[in-house]
């Protein structure tokens, strides 16, 4: 039995944390947040060089041959750092390509996506399941608009969610138009992407196991991002409570704040295993994998919103300033909770799965 991190997994997280401490340092992050850019090439490059984009792609397809657990651990660290870039979309497009049955498509695109040179992003709407996707397709072209696409200006490839729960890989260019949207999440800015008879590179069948797997994996990875952000909010709050003095004592000594921090820690730390399990269950195709993914998305994105609020309160005035930067994670938590459907929607889905499983 192994339900704690291996030394290799801890090492990957450490190395990623070290890289991001440099490439997404405070100055970089604040400059990005204050700009209108939805992508940051230098830090993206640093992630690519770690081989992160193909982490869950089989070795024979050029990836690291690890699983969704490892991808989630990486996304967690990216969430901690508030890293820009469509990490989730890139990882999932790499997996999608590696599983696509056309060797021509694989040959043309897989290496670039695994390497991260071809930036790939998800163009799904925020329906709580693939059946709610709305872009029309005839198998050859796609037509429709998807709002809230991350890093759309930088993207070379869009993994588009199509009517009835299919997916189409579409290349930037002909028939693809991008309109920036003012974005709450300033570290992962979003745009509306309009496809007008845009040519399809590859279509994944509506309702296919691959599509469902990728959707569930996306739920888990956005939960991982939320989890990392919550860890960051907790860590900033605890550090602040140790340093900051009032009435001659570090404020973390006062029982009320201490208990608020303990409650935040409880919310964060107890969610870790649920995140791991949801990823593991998808890796292992366990019967409750889809239920676990929905519950992880619902529970962890709720916790992240709650912890981000508590973090601002624990800081007092300074936490409410733009410059301090807590708001970067507050906004990112709000976004993670809204992406791919709300907690309430996923709880309802999970309840239906529980019922149809006869429990």
């Amino acid at each position, binding site marked *: 039995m192994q339900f704690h991190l291996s030394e290799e997994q801890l090492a990957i997280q450490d190395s990623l944390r070290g890289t991001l401490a440099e490439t997404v340092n405070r100055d970089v992050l604040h400059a990005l947040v204050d700009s209108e850019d939805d992508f940051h090439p230098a830090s993206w490059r640093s992630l690519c060089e770690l081989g992160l984009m193909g982490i869950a792609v089989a070795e024979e397809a050029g990836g690291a041959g690890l699983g969704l657990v490892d991808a989630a651990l990486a996304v967690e660290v990216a969430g901690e750092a508030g890293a820009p870039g469509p990490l989730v979309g890139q990882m999932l497009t790499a997996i999608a390509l590696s599983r696509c049955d056309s060797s021509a498509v694989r040959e043309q695109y897989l290496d670039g996506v695994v390497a991260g040179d071809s930036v790939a992003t998800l163009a799904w709407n*925020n329906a709580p399941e693939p059946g709610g996707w709305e872009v029309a397709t005839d198998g050859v072209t796609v037509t429709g608009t998807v*709002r*809230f696409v991350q890093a759309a200006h930088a993207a070379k490839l869009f993994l588009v969610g199509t009517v009835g729960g299919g997916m189409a890989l579409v290349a930037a260019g002909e028939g693809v138009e991008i309109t920036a*949207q*003012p*974005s*709450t*999440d*300033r570290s992962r800015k*979003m745009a509306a992407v309009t496809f007008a008879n845009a040519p399809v590179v590859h279509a994944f069948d509506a309702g296919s196991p691959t599509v469902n797997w990728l959707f569930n994996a996306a739920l888990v990875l956005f939960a991982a991002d939320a989890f990392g952000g919550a860890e960051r909010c907790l860590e900033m709050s605890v550090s602040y409570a140790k340093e*900051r*003095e*009032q*009435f*001659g*004592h570090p*404020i973390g*000594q*006062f029982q*009320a*704040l201490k208990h608020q921090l303990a409650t935040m820690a409880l919310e964060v730390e107890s969610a870790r295993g649920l995140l791991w399990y949801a990823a593991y269950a998808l890796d292992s195709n366990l019967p409750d994998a889809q239920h676990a993914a929905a519950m992880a998305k619902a529970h962890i994105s709720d916790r992240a*919103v709650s912890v981000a*609020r508590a973090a*601002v*309160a624990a800081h*007092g*005035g*300074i*936490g*409410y*300033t*733009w*410059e301090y930067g*807590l*708001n970067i994670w*507050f906004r990112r938590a*709000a*976004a993670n*909770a*809204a*992406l791919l459907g*709300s907690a*309430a*929607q996923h709880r309802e889905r999970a309840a239906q799965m529980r019922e149809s499983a006869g429990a």
Partner: protein
Amino acid sequence: MDLSYGAEAEVFRAQLRDFLAQRWRPADKGQALKDYIRAFRRDAVEQGYLYRGVPQQYGGSEQPVDVIRAQVIREEFARARAPMEVGGNGTNMLVPTLLECGTEEQKERFIRPTLEGDYVWGQGYSEPGTGSDLASVRTKGELRDGEWVINGQKIWTSQGRDATHMFALIRTEPAAAKHAGISYLLLDLKQPGVTRRPIRQMTGESGFYEFFFDNATTPADWIVGERGKGWIISRTTLKHERASIGSADGLGFQFSKLVELAKEIHIDGEPAILKPAIRQALGRVEGWVLAHRYSSYRIFSCAAANEEPGNITLMMKLLVTEIGHDMALLAQELLGENILLEPGPAGTRGRGPEKWLDQIMGSLGNSIAGGTTNIQRNIIGERGLGLPRDPGMRA
């Protein structure tokens, strides 16, 4: 029990309505409108409607305390959309303080221009690092050659963009004990030694300013009360501020907006207001909103009868904060993916649901401004319930 204001108040209301109907007919714009308003306010003071607590010699109307009349005045001015008193820290905090503790010369010099809006006052209490422990201020004032020379930094000043003056807590007696070393000084912000900088908040807007003092000066006699008594004098002021926080109408209005949002937003193809879970959540918030409303009635009724309403007065601020949190969380749930859209900058904010993002974050600002919720709970526990003070919270 009786919620009517009584016959006398209705006579007063009728007179006031007449006055407003005749006197408040703004036609102009720009400077002409400003002049019109200034003249209107002077007439309203003359009639006893504005600045009722301020003596006539300083520009007030010097009326006996009458909270019922004050309420009628608020209602009728609002109904006529007529401008009431110039708001802000100057009239709410400084003027009462000067009336209680200022010298005759200070009253003569500062009150009238404050009431007329010529002097705009920033509050200079908080500093980086003071938080709830305001008595830990470090901004220094030294008396040199007949004037105070001030060095340091103040933060969280509202009206900071327009402020012409500041009332501030300044450490003038470095040798004295913590609280005893502070004086209450007034200063002119339009001088070379003062720099101001907006503080951008997490909403992206700048509601507050910080001020830097680099050998800023103020005359020796711009001190309110004695040297080293500033802490006590500022406490008087804070009481005025607390009494002015919290309005039942404001919360009720916000709640009705939340209900409207639930009607506009569709979830799973139907208006959110039809979803039972949302209806229950709204109903829970409404219970608190009503609890707050009728608590404010109680306080108002006691004030009218000159009685003490008891512990409820200590709770109103926390109540507003907590209800604000509940509304924020519900708004966030209602917004769904709309929360991904950042609202435009202030002034240009549209009518889209994304404007609620401001309220969602603003509810956090509420719990910080004017004392954190932890301080509020300490006050309720210690002053309200008589529980023993925590020695660790004494400076």
